[in-house]
């Protein structure tokens, strides 16, 4: 049985200017210890998917219209608050893009680190403090005895991200959701944080969902990748297959537009147009308006993910029909 299995998740935002279908029928599952990358451009619904699982969608305007997210037998979207509290923040933890806005600026690091232990594990304060010190040490913060009493603003960006990782992992979660944790950091610091996440994953044996827009980050870290576009998953497969033989036109276009993969000085491939307006009904494939292979069928039928080989699903109708490679 998978650790987490999400089925037909739909999260819509009801705003004054219309209903935004941020996540529109997303299904995937995750095994214990697996690393799943979710890749997409801004507005593709990758973050909203994970916020929905964590119960972090502001309601209103957001609403989870349908779907289930079963974590170890408990549906996180339809369980009681008590059940939910026992899982979220303890067995499933999340880290965010900007550590300055996700740490509480008024609380010392010590209090923030100890909070999950006091709530979830009923530890005494001295015991919690010992665990907090050990957690800081394990994420590579020197001199934790002194630093634990500081406030978030006294740390640099990379250090704050380390503190947030320590905080998320202090209850030894089975699943860590990382929402662009290195986007705000410099490349040399990004390399440190990615190494740290890998090391902690090995030590704790946890599963990781890694949300990012950077295909480079995914390639070294994830076992499996799914690509999202306009609120839907368009392709999902293991990392090597995705990079060496992507099938969905969007994934292929994305790959052709990255400078790192193209010979220097060549004209980069560009995807014409813009992502669709999610507040308008989207009858066909979300990518059809920008796709060079689109036909009338693509614009009329909502495609579903279908396997084209074991472990490789994608949603392009024309690839499924064998029209294009």
């Amino acid at each position, binding site marked *: 049985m998978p650790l987490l299995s999400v089925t037909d998740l739909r999260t819509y935002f009801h705003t004054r200017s219309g209903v935004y279908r941020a996540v529109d029928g997303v299904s995937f599952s995750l095994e214990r210890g697996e690393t799943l990358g979710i890749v997409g451009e801004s507005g593709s619904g990758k973050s909203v998917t994970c916020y929905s699982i964590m119960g972090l969608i502001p309601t209103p305007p957001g609403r989870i219209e349908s779907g289930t997210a079963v974590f170890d037998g408990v549906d996180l979207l339809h369980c009681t608050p008590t059940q939910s509290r026992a899982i979220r923040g303890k067995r499933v933890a999340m880290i965010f893009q900007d550590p300055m806005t996700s740490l509480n600026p008024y609380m010392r690091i010590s209090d923030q680190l100890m909070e999950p232990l006091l709530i979830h594990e009923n530890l005494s304060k001295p015991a919690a403090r010992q665990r907090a010190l050990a957690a800081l040490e394990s994420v590579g913060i020197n001199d934790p005895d002194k630093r634990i009493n500081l406030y978030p603003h006294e740390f640099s*960006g990379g250090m704050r991200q380390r503190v947030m990782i320590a905080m998320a992992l202090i209850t030894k979660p089975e699943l860590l959701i990382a929402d662009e944790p290195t986007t705000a950091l410099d490349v*040399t610091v990004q390399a440190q944080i990615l190494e740290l996440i890998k090391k902690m994953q090995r030590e704790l044996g946890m599963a990781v969902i890694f949300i990012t827009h950077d295909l480079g980050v995914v390639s070294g870290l994830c076992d499996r990748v799914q690509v999202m576009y306009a609120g839907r998953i368009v392709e999902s497969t293991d990392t090597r297959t995705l990079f060496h033989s992507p099938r969905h036109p969007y994934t292929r276009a994305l790959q052709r*537009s990255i*400078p790192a993969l193209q010979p220097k000085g060549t004209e980069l491939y*560009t995807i014409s147009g813009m992502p669709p307006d999610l507040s308008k009904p989207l009858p066909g494939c979300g990518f059809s308006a920008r796709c060079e292979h689109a036909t009338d069928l693509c614009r009329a039928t909502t495609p579903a993910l279908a396997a084209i080989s074991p472990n490789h699903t994608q949603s392009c109708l024309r690839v499924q029909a064998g029209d294009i490679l």
Partner: protein
Amino acid sequence: MPSPALAPTPTPILELRDVRTHFPISSGFLFKRHVGTVKAVDGVTLSVARGEVLGLVGESGCGKSTLARTILQLVPTTGGTVVLSGQNLTTSNTAEILTARRDLQMVFQDPYASLNPRMTVFDTLAEPLLVHGVSSPADINVRVATLMRTVGLAPRFMQKYPHEFSGGQRQRIAIARALALEPKVIIADEPVSALDVSIQAQILNLLAQLVRKMNLSLVFIAHDLSVVKHISDRIAVMYLGKIVELGRAVDVIERPHHPYTRALVSAIPTPDPDIERTRQRIVLPGDPPSPINPPSGCSFHPRCPYARDICKATVPPLAPFATDRDVACLRAAEISDL
């Protein structure tokens, strides 16, 4: 893109000699005391040839944006000279600088912040033309329409406001504004960092095409090495206010000599799982140091895996190391085959 300007031409269009930009730090409320100096740019010597793209890379806080602002004289220079087509900007008066800016324009990182939300595209693009008196009010419509077509925007959007455009389109407007006066040099400060991958490719193509067509010189500042490598003829790597390595774009990325460049190159994740899983990554310890109290000697020595005692004492000069390559490292020759 052929690179005719690999060797700096005898008369570069833009030349920086030992440019220094320091900011004083004062403390106290009523009686300000001078407590220190941020050496944001500390002795940069560079030249840019006509039609050349110079990439400037470095992590946040290394002074690359301050250097851009110094070139445009948006911040006062502490020392050194900035020479644009033979004119020394550091000693020029305000009127002379205003004239010089016709040849020297800037594109900023965030197209959401760099366009005035209360000005239509027409107002934004017409303003430089009117300020510099290069276009009479009669034919300004035609000029603006041409500009918009140059950057791939339909002239019928002329009367729209910035909020009606997407990020990529806004960046096109910002580029059109920079092109309005037909400058010789454009400084682009992280022009694609705020954009999505597919939009980023459009803007990179546009910039490369403009450089070719208009024989522009471009100083392209970014932290993403793969983007810089793609567009630049030469690359300068900055660390804590100083250039540590300078050379041909492909060479610098493929055979970096300075230990910092090596670490920087190795830290970029490659979108290829086979390479990514087998290669050895140099993970630098710690954060970039503060420019208020830079380390003694080579400012990279606390994080450098090859540092020796001499590195703590002597500031390494940027010296020629190989063909078309300058490196500021005392041990560059010793460690070159490590």
